[in-house]
């Protein structure tokens, strides 16, 4: 994996605090207001959300930032359009707290609740994103189908086992 040169790159952490949750945190060199804006305005989200490199773009980015308002993102890569994500905003307390639902459209019955917290740490801002699945069964269903973050992140612990075993075998 290439080493990233973005500031604060080494502050990224990913944990599974419970069977139903996945938490990601990272620090940013910006105020909570700016981070919130970058994460909630379409013209900004388009610039970073799905663009792994020049071959990727965000083709749909709709955000109706109010309680009960909907959002929908679609990314596009070299192999074509990716299935969309959508959801509804549940709590908005800018910039500190944003709670919304998230559905990966191929699995419309699986709704996770995402809580996004921004806290000031000195001159920096810490982002904490926690995705919560309705049950262990649903989480496992998401995992087995190998979909985006749910899959990868919840299998984090398993990944540790797998990596360890692979290392010993090597």
């Amino acid at each position: 994996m290439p080493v990233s040169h973005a500031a604060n790159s080494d502050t990224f952490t990913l944990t599974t605090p419970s069977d139903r949750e996945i938490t990601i945190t990272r620090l940013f060199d910006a105020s909570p207001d700016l981070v919130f804006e970058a994460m909630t305005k379409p013209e900004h989200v388009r610039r970073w959300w799905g663009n792994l490199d020049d071959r990727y773009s965000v083709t749909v980015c709709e955000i109706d930032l109010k309680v009960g308002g909907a959002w929908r993102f679609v990314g596009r890569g070299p192999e074509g359009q990716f299935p969309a994500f959508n959801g509804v905003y549940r709590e908005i307390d800018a910039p500190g707290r944003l709670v919304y639902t998230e559905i990966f459209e191929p699995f419309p019955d699986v709704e996770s609740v995402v809580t996004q917290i921004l806290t000031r740490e000195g001159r920096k801002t810490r982002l904490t994103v926690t995705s919560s699945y309705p049950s262990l069964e649903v989480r496992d269903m998401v995992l087995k189908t190998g979909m985006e973050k749910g899959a990868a992140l919840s299998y984090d612990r398993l990944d540790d086992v797998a990596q360890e075993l692979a290392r010993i075998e090597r």
Partner: protein
Amino acid sequence: MPADQLSNTFAALADPTRRAILARLVTGECSVTELAEPFDMSMPAVSKHLRVLERAGLIARGREAQWRPCRIDAGPLKEVAEWTERYRHIWESRLDRLESYLQTMKAKEKKHARKPRRK
């Protein structure tokens, strides 16, 4: 590795008994009887777990000896590790891009602050 094979591997790894069996096999090949020992489980139950592991390509079983020794195959485990690493990487790089983008936003803000009357 095809996606359904990856699902098989994940499904096979999603069980604590099977992970314990794999952990035991890391120390070397052994028989079904030896594998069953630490578990309060019937031989058919252990054999069932072994079949799941074998189908997922996580273990191989010898044909030469009558006791058909089991051994671990780390290939699919490496694939799983690489796959999950990729998704972690998506989030990591996504937030790296956000950081870089925040810096362009800050630079723009400064520029606007310097020329408040020009739109």
